[in-house]
Structure formats: C-alpha cells, structure tokens
C-alpha cells in the first residue's frame, strides 16, 4: 500500500489566519481524501481531492473555508482559511489506489490549535 507523508505534523495558529497542509504519497493513487478528527471524535470526511479539477465537498464543508488542490496523482494540499478556535482539530490525508483490498492509507495527521 502507499505511504503518505503529511506536514506540518502540528501547528499553533492565530485566529483569522490560514494554514496549508501538504500531503505527499510515495506512489500514484487514484483517490485522495481529507478528513477532520475533532478531539475524542471519529473521522469526518471533508472532501475528495480530484486531480486537475475542483474538489468534491461533503455537506457542511465549503471551498471558501477549505480550499483543496491536487495538481498531480501524488500530491494534495488542504488550506484551513480564516481560522477560529472551532477549527482546532486533527486533519488527516488519505489515499487509495485502484483496488480497496488494502484499504485506505492515512497520513499521520496535522494537529492544529487555533488561539
């Protein structure tokens, strides 16, 4: 299965600023996703990152707040814009290939604290 590098691993940001999280996969993958995991909660899908086109957002998440790029088959970024303390969470990148038999691989996550 693919190996995912995600950075930064953690950051503390001022409210009103933006943070861009990078996700690099060591092989070409079909699909890439971004999740949010709030403290003590499970994972919530933010969006599917589509290569060469606009991301597909889940209900409750909008492009203006969480712009996503995926310029090629191995790289994606998620920006958390105009941050507020409610955005404090762990953000996870995930990827899968053409078959799901090995599941969806996850990065180690970015722990974001907004003060």
């Amino acid at each position, binding site marked *: 299965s693919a190996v995912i590098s995600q950075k930064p691993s953690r950051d503390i940001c001022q409210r009103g600023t933006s943070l861009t999280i990078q996700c690099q996969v060591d092989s070409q993958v079909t699909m890439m996703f971004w999740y949010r995991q709030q403290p003590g909660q*499970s*994972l919530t899908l933010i969006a599917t990152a589509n290569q060469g086109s606009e991301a597909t957002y889940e209900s409750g998440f909008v492009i203006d707040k969480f712009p996503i790029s995926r310029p090629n088959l191995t790289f994606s970024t998620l920006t958390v814009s105009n941050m507020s303390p409610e955005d404090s969470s762990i953000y996870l990148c995930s990827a899968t290939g053409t078959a799901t038999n090995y599941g*969806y691989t996850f990065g180690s996550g970015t722990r974001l604290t907004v003060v």
Partner: protein
Amino acid sequence: EDQVTQSPEALRLQEGESSSLNCSYTVSGLRGLFWYRQDPGKGPEFLFTLYSAGEEKEKERLKATLTKKESFLHITAPKPEDSATYLCAVVTGGYQKVTFGTGTKLQVIP
C-alpha cells in the same frame, strides 16, 4: 444516509481476557468494510478489509468477521500493546465514499 455504530465506546480488559468489538451498519450498496487501529496522536492504521457476509480475516490476535448487518473484531488473549482505539469504516457509492464509526477505545491492563 449511511450510518455506522460501534460498541462499546470503551472496553477495559485484563491481559489474556478475550472479547469482541461490534460494528453495526446501515448503508446502501456496501462495497467493503474496514477495520483500523488508531494510536493516540497518529493516523489510523489499516487492519482488515471485508467484502461479503461470511468472510473472515485474521491477523495475530485479531479476527474480523462480517454479516449482512454487522462486523465483529474478536481479540484473543489481548496484550497491553493492543491498547488503542479501533475504528470501523464502510465504503459505499460510486466514488467509494468512506464513513467511519465513532470507535471503541480498548485498554488492556497487565
């Protein structure tokens, strides 16, 4: 709307005390069910994929089973290093949407 429910929310076992974690789901068009392990401060680590009712997968002390409505993760003679949160997830839809359960936090006491 797809729903995944895991129980119990938390489980405390003595080392060597076998038990099972439950994942029940209500989805349309199940394409697969995953089990993950998540340690604090880390991303989920893939354990198993199950595709159809009756299927079973094993890895060391873990065994996952699947029926048409639920999946079980059986832990045989657990060790303290098995302490983690275990997540269940289902894959549905044409673009393989993944829905996660809320997890079971397992603590194994020496």
